């Protein structure tokens, strides 16, 4: 059973077809890379999966359930979490609160429970905090849990964003350029981390990335987009030797 099934997805902005007739299946527990030049429609695809955009055509199945047309928060609650290309943390909330907000979709206590500090809500709060600290320890941010997120170093912010996404207990995690702005050493660390969370938390991970090295190393399968169309799909080795891929990355005649 495929965890995510995209069938002939298209997205039009005015006259521009940002995503053109893309079909893609994602297997459970795999790490799938989506690569392509700037403007190829990679982030748009993420925005379609997470419900920020509704596809103009095509359908989207998550665990055999249609999710195109659902609101982003409903999709999140089904277990699809993401990070953003340009980091979107809650800057003026503490690191711990960022992760606690991340658990919003999997917790239940409502307005009255919070207002009046009812026992059920208090119990849930305790669990939320424990889980949040546990997750922060995973990336070595537990000591900084009381800092404002905006004062963290860049690499720490990237990690915090991943942890916030993990707080949702997702089965599918979308990482939008997780390695952007990192040096080689940090990227090594990131790769190891992504693999370890996949194994520990039994996740399926899709990542969009520019860095070919990183993608080739970590992904079991890669899909290549160019001008909104999928031009290749396969193992890293297959993709690396694909005519069309070489053309779109290096130009014709090489």
């Amino acid at each position, binding site marked *: 059973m495929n965890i995510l099934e995209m069938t002939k997805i298209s997205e039009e902005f005015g006259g521009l077809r940002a995503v053109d007739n893309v079909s893609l299946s994602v297997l459970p527990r795999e790490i799938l890379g989506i690569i392509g030049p700037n403007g190829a429609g990679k982030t748009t695809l993420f925005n379609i999966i*997470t419900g*920020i955009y509704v596809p103009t055509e095509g359908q989207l199945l998550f665990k055999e359930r249609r999710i195109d047309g659902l*609101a*982003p*928060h409903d999709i*999140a*609650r089904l277990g699809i*979490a*993401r990070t*953003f290309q340009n980091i*979107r*943390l*809650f*800057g*003026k*909330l*503490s690191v711990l*609160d960022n992760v*606690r*907000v*991340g*658990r*919003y*979709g*999997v*917790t239940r*206590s*409502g*307005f009255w*429970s*919070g*207002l*009046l*500090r009812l026992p059920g*809500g208090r119990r*849930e*709060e305790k669990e*939320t905090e424990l889980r949040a600290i546990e997750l922060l320890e995973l990336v070595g941010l537990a000591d900084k849990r*009381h800092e*404002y997120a905006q004062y963290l170093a860049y690499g720490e912010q990237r990690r915090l964003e991943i942890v*916030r*996404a993990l*707080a*949702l207990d997702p089965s599918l995690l979308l990482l939008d350029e997780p390695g952007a702005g990192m040096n080689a050493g940090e990227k090594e660390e990131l790769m190891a981390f992504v693999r370890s969370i996949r194994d520990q938390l039994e996740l399926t991970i899709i990542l969009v990335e520019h860095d070919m090295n990183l993608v080739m190393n970590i992904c079991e399968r890669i899909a290549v987009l160019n001008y909104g169309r999928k031009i290749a799909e396969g193992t890293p080795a297959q993709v690396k030797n694909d005519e069309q891929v070489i053309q779109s990355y290096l130009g014709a005649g090489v």
Partner: protein
Amino acid sequence: MDAFLNQTIDAYYLRIMIIIGINIILALGLNLITGVTGQLSMGHAGFMSLGAYASAILSIQLDAPFALALLGGALVAAFFGFLIGIPTLRLEGDYLAMVTIGFAEIIRVFFLNFGPGGKAVGLSGIPQNTGFTVVWLLVLVVIILNRQLLTSRVGRSFYAIRENEIAAESCGINTTRVKVLAFTVGSLLGGLGGGLYSHYMYYINPQDFGFMKSIELLNMVVLGGMGSIPGTIIGVVLLTSLPEMLRIVDEYRLLFYGALLVILMIFRPNGLLGDVRIYDIKKWWGKKGGRGT
């Protein structure tokens, strides 16, 4: 209690303290909407007037007990907050500000023409039930409940929306619903403050709840520090007592008031306590004279 206070404290100071209390309730309501959830509302006086008129009419026409009149006023304001929140909270920033100004003006003009509210003459003969004890007891309750709400799951989602709406959605927060909730609760507090106000002044007039009142309340929230409960309280205390203290400079009063606002905003652009937390103070204290915040 009130009788005792009336004998021991000068009536002038007692009056200022009561008004500070009422303003704290009003400003904490606006703080929920603008400071915490980040939805710029410039029409809070509109909700205040709804609460003021509704509770006054309940008291005068139906002889309702004070508690019931207050509750009624607050609920009417909350209901309209809810009603107006649903369509308008899809707007952002400047647009929302404009719509809220417009709404407050509509309410003002409505009461200018509303028979049972005395039209432009205003409404008088409201029983003067509001006293120091009632106001400050309610202030205490409002502060405690505010704090409990803001440290809960739902309260954190308010802050998350202010900080980054798209990220908040991706965490599973139904941002539209949460914004309407914040707006409704904020309006409820606006209505409660309005009810206390009308039962203290025993005469109200649509002009009491004009645009300047909304701006005054917004000033308190911004000056004290957006989203901070102690900050809002300090903002209220300062901006309510400053014009009184500045009576010494007489006709230049408003000039000084404006200048002080400008100076404060230059040196503390995030408001007095905008980004100060107990944690930071403790850390600062621990370093003994180290760098603050």
